[in-house]
């Protein structure tokens, strides 16, 4: 059976302009929501369930990845009934280690691919990188777009690359990292989001976490609005993942408010929203502990893996 290869329809590049101050004002408004009591507890647990616990360092070893997976399975055993994180995110070389460590759990293994983080390589190598991750057992693939090609105006190239990676993913879900910190303006973020969604992304993701700025509320809002328009036009949902720079529970709750009020309650689920974070989990655990115990906690009591 021949599957028709997707082609970039240039029409989609005519998206509405984005007014930056307006986006920033709306973003600030989300931070004014006061999340207290049972609402806070439920929100914190939602956040935990949406975290992709991440290690993406040159010095990663099986030892490190195993310890991270243990943390994923045992966030804080002192508090019973906590959800697990959604996934572990590692380099392709560490996927098999993670897969083995997480056997029997519902925690997914996500792998970065396509010459992460820069994406400066040939299509051949990027597809091989993707296939490696998938063969090793990755449930999800986080790819990077070619920002250089994007800025050079070669949108069809960017599109084709994403579509090819999507095909190579087979059953794995594809997250497309736009690296919003390199795109320049919110209009560019909208454009890149539109291209990624059209090319078959299951998720669009803000950042690699390797440069500043990483995820911000305004950038996330623009991406959610793009997802919303796509959903209203086609009935198809696309997930969203802000990554990098979210280390505090309060900020994570602001993001949940944003998702709720922009897309709706159905989207507040790990299938459609993730946090790419490493230290967020412990801050959330400390907040959960405070809500239960009634006093402020200390980092000493929460394991750092």
């Amino acid at each position, binding site marked *: 059976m021949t599957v028709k290869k997707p082609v970039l329809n240039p029409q989609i590049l005519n998206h*509405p*302009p*984005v*007014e930056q*101050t*307006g*986006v920033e*004002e*709306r973003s600030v408004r989300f931070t*004014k*929501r*006061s*999340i*207290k*009591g*049972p*609402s*806070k507890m*439920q*929100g914190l647990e*939602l956040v935990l369930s949406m975290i992709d616990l991440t290690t993406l360092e040159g010095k990663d070893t099986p030892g490190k990845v195993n310890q991270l997976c243990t943390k994923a399975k045992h966030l804080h055993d002192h508090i019973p009934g906590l959800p697990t994180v959604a996934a572990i995110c590692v380099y392709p070389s560490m996927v098999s280690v993670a897969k083995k460590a997480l056997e029997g759990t519902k925690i997914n293994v996500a792998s970065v691919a396509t010459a992460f983080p820069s994406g400066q390589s040939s299509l051949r190598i990027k597809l091989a990188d993707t296939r490696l991750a998938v063969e090793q057992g990755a449930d999800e693939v986080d790819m990077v777009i070619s920002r250089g090609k994007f800025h050079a105006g070669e949108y069809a190239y960017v599109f084709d690359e994403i579509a090819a990676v999507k095909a190579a993913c087979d059953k794995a879900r594809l997250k497309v990292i736009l690296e919003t910190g390199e795109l320049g303006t919110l209009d560019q973020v909208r454009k890149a989001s539109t291209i990624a969604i059209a090319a078959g992304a299951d998720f669009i993701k803000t950042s690699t976490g390797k440069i500043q700025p990483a995820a911000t509320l305004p950038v996330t809002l623009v991406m959610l*609005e793009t997802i919303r328009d796509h959903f209203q036009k086609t009935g198809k949902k696309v997930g969203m993942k802000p990554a990098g720079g979210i280390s505090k529970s309060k900020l994570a709750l602001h993001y*949940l408010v944003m998702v*709720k*009020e922009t897309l709706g*309650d159905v989207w*507040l*689920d790990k299938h459609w929203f993730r946090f790419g974070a490493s230290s967020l989990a412990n801050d959330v655990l400390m907040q959960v502990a405070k809500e239960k115990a009634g006093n402020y906690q200390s980092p000493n009591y929460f394991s750092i893996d």
Partner: protein
Amino acid sequence: MAKKKKWEYSPAPESKQPAAIAGRYALFINGKWQKPSSGTYFNSINPATEEKLSEIATANETDVNKAVQAAKQAYEKYWKKISPTERGKYIFRIARIMQERARELAVTETLDGGKPIRESRDFDIPTAANHFFYYAGWADKLDFAFPNKKANSLGVAGQITPWNFPLLMAAWKIAPALATGNTVVLKPAETTSLTTLKLAEIIQEAELPPGVVNIITGDGQTGAWLTKHNDVNKIAFTGSTEVGKIIQHTLAGSQKKLTLELGGKGANIIFEDAPIDQAVEGVVNGIFFNQGHVCCAGSRLYVQESIAKKFIQKLKDRIGTLLVGDPMDKNTDIGAINSAQQLKTIQAYIKIGKAEGATFFETDCVLPKKGFFCRPTLFTNVAQSNRIAKEEIFGPVLSILTFRTDDEVIEKANNSPYGLSAGIWTDKGARIFNLSKRIRAGVIWANTYHLFDPTSPFGGYKESGFGREGGLQGLHPYVQLS
């Protein structure tokens, strides 16, 4: 697998305690709290709960005269003579103390008037304090404000403020008056006197000489006596066009200077190349901010026909997320309507809109059982000749019309006896500068709405009033140039 519970916001109530509202307030005349001559008081209630908050004094003609005389004496004896630098420092003190007592003022404003605590806290109170900061700085710089002219103070300014932004409007009135060397007698709106009375406490705390600012509470009659008083040199009024016309008529033949800031029917114009999602926010902000109790509200939405369907759908989806309820809840988006009277007016217009054949839509939020509340309301298929497109409703009700071309919408936007504000949403700079030039309104917001700043002059064309408040131009109404 258990069904997931929907994530709702728990109530986040602000505490009433910081408000410290007294059971009864007298009149603030000549630096002292004085009982009203008639001995009568009226109740001020919380429009969200209909509970009594306090008792407010009714100033009669004798009290009005006492206050004006105090202001006149203070002008002659102190305020005219104090060095401008020192005058500025007094005003800086007022600003500082307002910042320090911000929470008390914000909670009071919400309890008294029904606006959400988030708005009092984040907008009304800080902007009011900043207005005093701004004009404090002008006190000793008036020689630079009017090329080739000396700016002289007028004497006693009689000022009447409305109930939609009680403390902010008091700041807009008092700050420039004091900075330019005038003394003040101010009458706040009867449904919302409390924050102005607290401002009197602050003025006392700042040790302003007695009589420089006098606050007399009461009803329309109190205001009328103030406008008629012979020793008042200038009248400044913010309120309905109807009353503004009465005041202008009263002043005919007198030497009193006058500024009026009256009603409006702002046109918010969305072109097809607008930043759509941000424009939706701008429209929502334009009509639902402060429950629509805003003179410059974007109460007429003109959306270019080619994008009308999509835009209106996005608008409906967005307003579905607005939370109407207890103004003291930090999550409330739309608070209480200011009074039973105003709610009646709004409901009457909704009836008229339906009768005129416009298509009615309101969100399905649950309203509190007590208090005066109204759901966010849209009317589509509105025509230029409908009453709901012409008359000021002053509530959370938006009339939506379509247009095709620039010249058509310019004409329609201008086709009104009002001329206070307009919004323009487009990606094209050249269009912004064109519409800004041709729309006959005093405040034009391009790709934004409801932005205010002490440095930015505000005021209307036509029946929206005359005179400007804020900025360099805001000094002009309070001086005589020689």
